């Protein structure tokens, strides 16, 4: 399924574009360098089995539920069914593009095109996850170890460990109770080993918890939280105003708006 929210689809379209020599040679040189770089970065994908295992794990962490909200009852999907794995894959591919230059009032149009129109920041331009030693950069050598590759390996090994724990089945084939037991045991084991100190060496499941939280409660532009479903659940409007040229009609809040409690409309 392709929706405007599906960055993976966007990425694949882009890959196809890059593969076309004609298109590539038409680009000016700096853009071509960037395209090459994006190609290197976007070459990471999970296998179908890895996707399935990670979706099962994400859905165990955040299972589907019927939730009582301040605006009434609501049926909410599990994380694995609302884009959590897409979020992680986008993250690990380095192709995730930050939601800059987006301009939309909250919920104005369901599935409104929110892909950045200008000023978008590709992930390589951002620290922490955006540096990967082996990929060329246009202007600056980047001779540092790849955090991105570390995370990719962490996930690959993590999937293998989950499958091993569910043996003789695979993790995604195990019943929900067994999945939760496996993840609780893994969490306990990691909590024993990892002292919480330092940066950049958090083990697999604790990392997955962070990423599932980001996927579900971050901006849908990154692939998770599809249709703003978890934001709608908590009554969070998301960005009310974003960039590119100053405030437009309906953006932000007035003093009168804020003088009363917020209630979700529609």
């Amino acid at each position, binding site marked *: 399924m392709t929706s405007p929210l599906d960055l993976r689809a966007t990425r694949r379209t882009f890959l196809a574009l890059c593969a076309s020599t004609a298109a590539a040679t038409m680009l000016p040189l700096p853009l071509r360098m960037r395209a090459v770089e994006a190609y290197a970065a976007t070459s990471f994908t999970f296998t179908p089995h890895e996707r399935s295992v990670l979706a099962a794990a994400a859905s165990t962490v955040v299972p589907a539920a019927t939730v009582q909200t301040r605006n009434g009852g609501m049926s909410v999907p599990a994380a694995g069914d609302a884009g959590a794995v897409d979020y992680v894959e986008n993250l690990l591919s380095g192709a995730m593009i930050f939601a800059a230059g987006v301009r939309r009032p909250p919920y104005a149009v369901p599935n409104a095109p929110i892909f950045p129109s200008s000023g978008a920041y590709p992930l390589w331009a951002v620290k922490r996850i955006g540096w990967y030693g082996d990929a060329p950069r246009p202007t600056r050598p980047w001779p540092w170890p790849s955090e991105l590759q570390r995370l990719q390996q962490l996930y690959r090994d993590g999937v293998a460990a989950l499958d091993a724990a569910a043996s003789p089945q695979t993790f995604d084939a195990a019943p929900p109770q067994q999945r939760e037991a496996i993840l609780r045991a893994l969490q306990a084991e990691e909590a024993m080993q990892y002292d919480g100190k330092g940066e950049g060496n958090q083990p697999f499941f604790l990392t997955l918890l962070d990423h599932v939280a980001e996927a579900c409660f971050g901006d849908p532009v990154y692939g998770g939280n599809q249709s703003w479903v978890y934001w709608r659940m908590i009554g969070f409007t998301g960005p009310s105003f*974003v960039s590119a040229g100053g405030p437009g009609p309906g953006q932000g809040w007035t003093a009168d708006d804020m003088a009363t409690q917020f209630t979700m409309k529609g």
Partner: protein
Amino acid sequence: MALPEVEVLIVGSGAGGGIAAWVLAEAGFRVTVLEKGPWLTETAFSNDDVKFGYRDFYTQDALIEPRTFRQTAQQTAQVNHVSPLSRCVGGGSFHYGAASFRFIPDMFRMRSLYGTPPDSTLDDWPLGYDDLEPHYTAVEQTVGIAGLAPGFPPPTGYPGERYQPPPNALAAQFGLHYSRQYPLPPVAQRYDGIAFNRGATAGGYHPYPTPCAINTVEGWQGRHACVNCGYCNGWGCPNGAKSSTLVTALRRALATGRCEIRPECCAIQVTLDKRGLARSVLYLDRDLNVQEQPARLVILACSTIDTPRLALLSANSLHPNGLGNNESGMVGQNLTTHHNPSAVVTITDGVHSWDTYRGAWNTISFDDLQDLSGRRDLPGGVAFPRGGVVSTCGNSPGYPDGTGGPISLAVAMMKPPGFHPGGGNAYSPGGAWGAGFLQQMASVAGTQAYILGVCEDLPRAENRVDLDPTVKDVYGMPVARVTYSNHPNDVAVGAYVAQQLVPVGQAMLQAIGASGTVGITAPTPTPVTSYAVAPRYVVHQHGTMRMGSSPQTSVVNRYGQFWDIPNLFVADGSLFTTAGGYNPTHTIEALAHWVASYIAAHRDAVLGSGARPLVATSVGGDAAAGLPDTSGPGPGASASAAAAAALAGGAALARRRRRSDPS
């Protein structure tokens, strides 16, 4: 080979460096600004928790440029996120919550008022409120600070008392006088701010609109007004309403045609000439080549952690323990960070919500807990009875408690205690993921308001920044090692102030007819996890290049000038002699304005051929004759050579790759 000499070289472009660049460029100096971070513009800023809260979009990356942290000198420091300020053009003024208080006069003379409590280095500032007042005013009028000063008609556009509390009723009592009204009316109040106004007033407190460096009048200075988008403290402002130096002082500096900003240029060493004067700054440019930029005058404004680090990295034969460290030995000492007693006001009735993600970050405050002397219920043994300002605060990305936004609430619920940045998990000791998680999120999100105290911590010599003996950054340079633990006085005062916030929170709930709970936090003497110990969320940092009235008891003089290097100045938060009970940025800006104004008024003395060390260096003799050239290899120089060597390999590698790229 060195670049052509420039007149004034400023290292850092934040609240200090940005203001200094503006003042000096307008005074006719040719100014060059080095900034280690990128030059981001408004199109890169968005209402986005992932980017700003979780991907280090603007902060120093602890994996590339780490810092280490420990609580006491006996411990081995661990790599951590330590007080990570913005790393971009605009510096700390880019991400900050824009609360822009003036210090009250008492805060400049704490030793005169309280002596020097044991295990502290409490001292008086070498200047007073009256010295800084014109500089506070100049900054307010120029960058645009929105507020309500007592004793004047309100600023044009003031929406009236239906929307705003009155001016600070305690200002006169504190001797806090203004020479002009703020140029802009206060920022709009959030829902929780309105409740705070009613609740605190009912409790006998005197709330007033927080002065904010935020434009509130559309078109003022050609800038957009704040639209209360709610993504303020911790984000770059997407429409330029926040008065960061990026859109105010630096713009004005650039408009003179005499200012150049060099982003992605990381200073690694200050070199001196044979006379002992600052000669140049070595820096890594954006391609990681080492450049030497000679200058007639150098201003260090790289923040409280990196300014002393640069001074220490610049050790040479004249200054074997780092620049400015010959007499006092105080470079890096007396680090203060504030302590933050706070209350989380949680609605539990399932009907109401605070929704603190609407509006500016800090809109309302009171000063009734600044001076605690004479309070009978203060715990015994408090020698320094000073609290700080209390405000109700909105959304901030990644904050562990209260108003951290949906992601951080989810992380705090999901992760077991000790493994999320807040330390403990209040929802389940095993991590509250799994069945019931989504219901818990739906019930808790939006229901928490946050009352924050910014309290004055006692300066201590042991709380300091120095060079880590083992950890290096990717450039091969020793990183800053931060040692910090609270004085017992801070812990006692913090517990007391936090307790005072409970009835304020209860009155807030009452004001909107909601029921709920008030939970408090205060500094503890022994935090339980390493995530919790490092000052990670409140990044106030001051004091490490202390200004004072003698070279024996301070690093720089009252004008931020090194005692023994007359053409080298400091203009950032590291000057603070004591912490003050307010968010620091406005005072950093006023100090930078003061320092730069001094330089502008004494051009020949500090810049001309007459520049001479003001005090004899420890080497003795005529400072201008017969001294060794100190540009030779010191620890910093060898580190930069190592970096150059290491990076040369990387650069060659990248060049090879680029040649073989398909294109």
